[in-house]
């Protein structure tokens, strides 16, 4: 299964990954419209962490042993049978925050959509590659087969 590999030595903290993740999860899928009309209710699932020149873009690590799946009492956190990606089924999520409490990478957030649900990277299942990887100008995020 392909996963996102993070190369902190090439991250330039431009945050274009955050911009494009946000757009990929908007309704309009249009960058100008998403920022003008949807900004308050959509969020990026990748967050750039920065301290001085050290920076890297952090999203769900798609753990082989996912703690979120183990802790989720509603079954919302599940492994997609087709792609193998760990995703949150937002229709089943009740916002109990167990996943936030157990994710060692802190990759799950409370959604700003107005619904009490958890939000995390879904590996952009409908696209050829995740939006953050596709738009990183310095290949600090790569999409690689990791068995």
């Amino acid at each position: 299964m392909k996963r996102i590999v993070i190369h902190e030595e090439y991250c330039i903290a431009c945050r274009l990954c955050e911009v494009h993740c946000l757009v990929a999860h908007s309704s309009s899928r249009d960058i100008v419209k998403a920022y003008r009309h949807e900004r308050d209710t959509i969020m990026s699932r990748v967050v750039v962490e920065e301290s001085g020149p050290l920076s890297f873009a952090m999203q769900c690590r798609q753990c082989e042993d996912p703690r979120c799946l183990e802790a989720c009492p509603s079954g919302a956190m599940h492994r997609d049978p087709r792609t193998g990606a760990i995703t949150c089924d937002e229709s089943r999520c009740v916002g109990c925050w167990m996943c936030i409490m157990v994710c060692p990478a802190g990759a799950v957030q409370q959604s700003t959509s107005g619904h009490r649900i958890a939000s995390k990277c879904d590996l952009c299942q409908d696209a050829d590659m995740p939006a953050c990887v596709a738009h990183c100008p310095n290949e600090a995020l790569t999409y690689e087969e990791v068995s």
Partner: protein
Amino acid sequence: MKITIVGNSAAAVGAIEAIRELDQEATIQVVTAEGPAIYSRPLISHYVGGEIDEGHLAYRPPTFYETHQVETLFDEVVTAIDAQAHTVATAKGRTLDYDKLLLAIGGSPIVPPMAGLDLAGVTTFATWADAAAIDHEIDAGHVSQAVVVGGGMIGIKATDALLKRGVQVTMVELAPRILIRALDELGAEMMTDLFERAGVRVLTENTVAEIIPDGERIGGVVLKDGQRLDCDLLVFGIGVRPNVALARDAGVKVDRGVVVDRAMRTSDPDIYAAGDVAEAYDLVVDLNRTVAIWPNAYRQGAIAGAQMVGQPRQDQGGIAMNAIEVAGVPCVAIGEGNAEGDGYTVMTRAQPERHQYRRLVLEGNRLVGVILVGNISRAGIYTGLIRHRVDVSAHRDSLLSDRLSLLSVPEDYRKHVVRGQGIEV
């Protein structure tokens, strides 16, 4: 290879999913006292609270058994285990054989013996049936005042759910403060304040001594200190006791729970236990104890399942933890968040009037407990530090920050987390 699993909640599902990931041939049979629905007990508070409907209580779809090739026996209570013969007997007279047996039978709600427990409006807060009954009572207009016995996790969730339905609630807790096992004084104070602002009456160092009937229904209760409270709903949310009788009678070693090793094996090599019934290794306190939380149940079930089909998976250990929300304010308690005294270093940052609290407990160089009220963002980073026993002595200040991030942790550990399991860079 025939694997028999008694129970069909989190531990059973964990076991089944782990087995089928490794082995398509083994026969799996589930025997449960409940019906076919695989539902989530923690979600019943969301159901009672009106946030989700019954359909959303399902933890796995109805097709789960079929897709995982599991034979099932519902409404069957297992009454005895013959460890020598490798069989279990059921209440309906069946004898089922097994090569490996997993006890995933959970715990039962603690209810102090007293008269009146069979009156309408007196209930526990454990099962779908309990939740459906409460929901029905509220819908029928029978409930305006409720008393919840227990100020621990279960009592809190029951109270919050009833609050959302517009019921007036009095919460009664025997200890000097609510959530005494999870929170410290200041944390408990904040949560109590949130309840009180929402109109809940919180009574501590007290409990229900007597039930007063009103015909077939409950009319009120008398407390230990003599106070009389009117109520039309009494919810026992004191806690659960592991269902050890079955194992004990079969000669398997039990303590407060069924004792298991890191492979979830009991004293009998072919009998395993997982979930609320098990007394398994807790890596924070470094001894076995029963911590009845969902993540432990699922993980222990998965380890038992893997072991039963020959994969030598070991449990790293559980961590006591829970996440709740009262009046819209989230609260998370991980490990020994309320510890204090010799050997512990406690660091706090508090704004009680804004219901913001961060309490970190270190033992030597390692983090062993966390309490968060208000800002629970990325709390799992703490959990990871606790689980991996990371030396955080050089990072205490950054860990206490409201903007907790992976840059707040030691570099080696950060690289390990960022790399992700199994990815070599």
